[in-house]
């Protein structure tokens, strides 16, 4: 087995975050990532599509983090952005939005599902997430930037979601959710932090390398990729 490739699938660049995508990409490359996804919030998009920098041996994926409070509007936003993005993230935060995101197989990741007094997931939603192949995002920034009671709340929500994800086999994605260069963490630090927070070593590794790779494969079908719902029959006497 070769060295795993690491990806950070939720990075916010200017005008959403503080730094430009060029600065974030070169720092992420220095940290040892193989790729990042630029996922600005949909309510702070610039008028025209930003040009993605091309750096050798490093990929910048086009992503988006949809922020919407109305489930039916969310579905239409998903339809609007799906074909032009490699990574589609939904910013959760209410019962109906979490549900709408997890029941839509065109969504890749649901971030920040927690609201009020709930961790954001339950048995029904976790099952839906597993069926539709929607991953649950674990954004590091809120965990790193808070302390004391707020962080304790977030960690217990995270652990509740982790239990559900393990039970129903939902994929997890570790991402920095970086708003500036100072929010990026190198893959090894991210892994160490995730393990201290309760993930197993192999789960953490999957969440930062295998699951993102699968998402990209799904959205950029290359030659030989078998789409969902299609079965390849092999043998001589099929017809």
């Amino acid at each position: 087995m070769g060295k795993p490739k690491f990806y950070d699938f939720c990075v916010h660049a200017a005008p959403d975050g503080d730094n430009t995508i060029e600065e974030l990409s070169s720092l992420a490359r220095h940290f040892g990532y193989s790729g990042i996804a630029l996922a600005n919030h949909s309510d702070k998009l610039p008028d025209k599509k930003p040009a993605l920098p091309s750096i050798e041996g490093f990929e910048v994926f086009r992503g988006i983090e949809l922020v919407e409070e109305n489930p039916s509007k969310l579905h239409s936003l998903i339809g609007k952005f799906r074909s032009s993005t490699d990574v589609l993230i939904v910013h959760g935060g209410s019962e109906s939005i979490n549900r709408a995101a997890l029941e839509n197989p065109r969504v890749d990741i649901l971030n920040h599902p927690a609201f009020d007094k709930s961790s954001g997931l339950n048995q029904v939603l976790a099952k839906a997430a597993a069926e539709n192949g929607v991953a649950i995002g674990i954004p590091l920034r809120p965990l790193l930037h808070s302390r004391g009671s707020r962080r304790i709340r977030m960690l217990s929500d995270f652990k509740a979601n982790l239990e559900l994800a393990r039970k129903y086999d939902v994929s997890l994605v570790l991402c920095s959710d970086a708003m500036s260069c100072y929010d990026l963490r190198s893959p090894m630090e991210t892994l160490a932090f995730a393990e201290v927070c309760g993930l197993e070593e192999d789960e953490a590794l999957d969440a930062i390398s295998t699951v993102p790779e699968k998402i990209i494969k799904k959205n950029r079908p290359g030659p030989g990729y078998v789409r969902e719902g299609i079965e390849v029959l092999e043998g001589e006497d099929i017809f």
Partner: protein
Amino acid sequence: MKRLLPSLRAKKRYLAFELISEEPASRGDIVKEVISSASSLLGDITTSDCDIKVLGFENGKGIIQCSHAKVKETRASMAALTRINGKRATLHVLGTSGTVKRATEKFLQAEN
């Protein structure tokens, strides 16, 4: 006093790191923030097991010593550091080693 045999000494790991920050910081600031971040993330008891010490720090690079069994916890608390003196900062671990000499040679001098 006779020195302890290497096999009897407490085993350490040395993490070479670089500081990425808005404003330059001193060794004292880093010690303070790393310990405070560790005690907030891991609690005082685990932090005491980690045995974190900042050995040297100059030109934005330095070495942190920790117990060999607590490398993961130490890295996590370095990741949890977000600010130094109220200015945004982050510590990036360049690599780990079992001796100060090797950590310096491999991670701190190689790039100069």
